[in-house]
C-alpha cells in the first residue's frame, strides 16, 4: 500500500519536473537560436530486470511489480528554427546542421545564435559579449580592418570591398547529445570530442528564431497539469484506503 503511494509521488515529481522544463522553453520562445529541451520520462526497471530475481524463493509477482517513473537525460530538439529577416548583414541565420564556434579566452564553445558585431578592436564578436570572438574554420578569431562595408556569402565567406577577407566557421561534434547548455545561448562540448567542419547555408540578414512551438508547449503543459492531479488523486485514494485499513478494519465496537 505505502509502496503505491511512493510510486504516485514519483509520478507527481516527474510531472512537476516536466513543467519546469516546459516553463523554460516558453520563457525562451523569443531567444535567438534557442533549441527546446525535451523532458522525457522513463519507467524505472523492475527489480527483476535490474538485478535478476532477488532469490530463488522470490515471489514472481513482486519481482515484476512496476517501480514507477523517473526523468530521462535531457534531450535537445535540434530541429531548424524559422529564419526571421532583420536587415542587419552581421546577423546570420544557419540553415542546416552546424554551430558557430565562439572563443572566450581560449575556451571554445558552440552556438546557433548568429547575432554578431565588430568590436572596437575590429574582431567579429557576439553582439552581447565583446570578449567572445567568432571563429573561422581554422578556429582563429576573425579580424576585420577599417570601416568598409562587410557582406557575408551563403557559404560564410566574408567579403569587404569586393575581396574575400575570411570565412565564418561552423562546426559539428561527433555526439550532439554530449552538448551541454551553458546559458547565454552557448553550448559547451566535452574536451575530448573533436570538432568537424560543417557546411550549412549562411543567411546574412536573418536570425534563427527559437524552435519553441507555443501550441506544443501549452498542450504539454496542460497534459502535465492533469497528470500531476491524477497522481495527487491517487495519493489521496491510497490514503483513504489506508485510513479504512487502520481505523475501521478490526474496529472493536
Amino acid at each position: 500500500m505505502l509502496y503505491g503511494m511512493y510510486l504516485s509521488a514519483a509520478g507527481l515529481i516527474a510531472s512537476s519536473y516536466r513543467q519546469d522544463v516546459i516553463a523554460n522553453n516558453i520563457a525562451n520562445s523569443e531567444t535567438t537560436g534557442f533549441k527546446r529541451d525535451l523532458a522525457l520520462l522513463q519507467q524505472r526497471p523492475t527489480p527483476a530486470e535490474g538485478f535478476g530475481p532477488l532469490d530463488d524463493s522470490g515471489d514472481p509477482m513482486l519481482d515484476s511489480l512496476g517501480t514507477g517513473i523517473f526523468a530521462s537525460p535531457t534531450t535537445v530538439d535540434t530541429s531548424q528554427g524559422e529564419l526571421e529577416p532583420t536587415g542587419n548583414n552581421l546577423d546570420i541565420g544557419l540553415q542546416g546542421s552546424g554551430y558557430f564556434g565562439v572563443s572566450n579566452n581560449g575556451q571554445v564553445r558552440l552556438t546557433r545564435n548568429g547575432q554578431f558585431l565588430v568590436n572596437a578592436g575590429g574582431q567579429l564578436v557576439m553582439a552581447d559579449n565583446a570578449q567572445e570572438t567568432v571563429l573561422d574554420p581554422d578556429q582563429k578569431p576573425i579580424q576585420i580592418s577599417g570601416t568598409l562595408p562587410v557582406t557575408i556569402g551563403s557559404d560564410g565567406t566574408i567579403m569587404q570591398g569586393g575581396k574575400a577577407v575570411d570565412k565564418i566557421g561552423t562546426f559539428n561534434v561527433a555526439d550532439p547529445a554530449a552538448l551541454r547548455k551553458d546559458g547565454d545561448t552557448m553550448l559547451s562540448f566535452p574536451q575530448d570530442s573533436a570538432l568537424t567542419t560543417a557546411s550549412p547555408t549562411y543567411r546574412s540578414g536573418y536570425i534563427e528564431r527559437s524552435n519553441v512551438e507555443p501550441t506544443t508547449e501549452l498542450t504539454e503543459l496542460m497534459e502535465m497539469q492533469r497528470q500531476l492531479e491524477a497522481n495527487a488523486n491517487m495519493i489521496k485514494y491510497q490514503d483513504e484506503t489506508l485510513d479504512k485499513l487502520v481505523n475501521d478494519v478490526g474496529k472493536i465496537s
Partner: protein
Amino acid sequence: MAITALHAAATGLRALSTDIDVIANNLANSETTAFKGSRVNFEDLFYQTLKQPGTDGSTGQIAPSGIAVGLGTRIGNTEIDMSQGSMQNTNNPLDIGIQGPGFFRVKVLSTLGDGTAYSRNGAFYVNADNELVLGVGDGYQLVPPVTIPTGVTNITISQDGNITGLKAGAEAPTTIGQIKISQFVNPQGLSQLGGSLFQETAASGPPIESIPGDQGSGQLLQNFLEASNVDPVNELVNLIKTQRAFELNSQSIQTADQALETVANLRRS
C-alpha cells in the same frame, strides 16, 4: 518543484515587458528625423543540473547525458539598428542627409562625456555667430566648425561635403567650408544620449574622420533629411508577437501555481 517553473516564467514576463518598452519607444519615434530603432536580443539563463552526465544509475547503467533544467530567459543586449532611413526632400539648403554610414560630429555640453557627440540628424541652421549648428537641443556646433558669412546666397553642398556659396556682389561661387563625417568600427557600441545624439564609448572604438564618401562612409545629400528607420508594420508585428509570448508565460505561472495548490492540498484533513 514547480517553483522553478514559476521563476522561469517570471523571467520571461520581465524580459518581454522590456521588449514591449523598446518597441513602444521605436513606434513613438517613427517620425523622428534620423532615429535609429533598437531591437532586444534574448538569451537563455543558466541551467540547473539535476544529474551530472556520466553518473551511475540505480541499476548500474551510466547516463550518457545529464538532466538539466533551464532557469528562464534574460535580455542579452539591445542592439541599435543602424540601417539607412529613407530620404525626405525638404527644399531647405541647410538640410543634409547622409547616404551610407557615418555621423556628423557636434560639440555638446562639456559635462557630457568628452563634450563631443555624433548625430545623423542633418537639420542645420546658422546661429547668431554665423556658425553652422544643429537644429536640435541647444544648437550644437558642427565640428570641424563651418562659418557661413552674412549675405552669402546659393549655398551648395556637394556629395563630398564641400560647401560653396555666392558672396554678395561676387559673380563666381567660392568655397566656404568642408563638412567631415565620423565613422566607428562598431557603431552599435555607441551610447544613445537622446535628442538624436550618440556618444563614443570603449565598445564603439575611436571615431575615424574622413571626407564624405571616403573609407566607405556615406555621401551627403543636400535638401534632404533622413527619416526614422523604424518600420511601423514590423514593429506592430513584433508587438503582437511579444504580447502573445507574454501571455504564454503567464499560462506557465498559472499552471505552476495550480500544481503547487494540488500538492498543498494532498493531505486529507
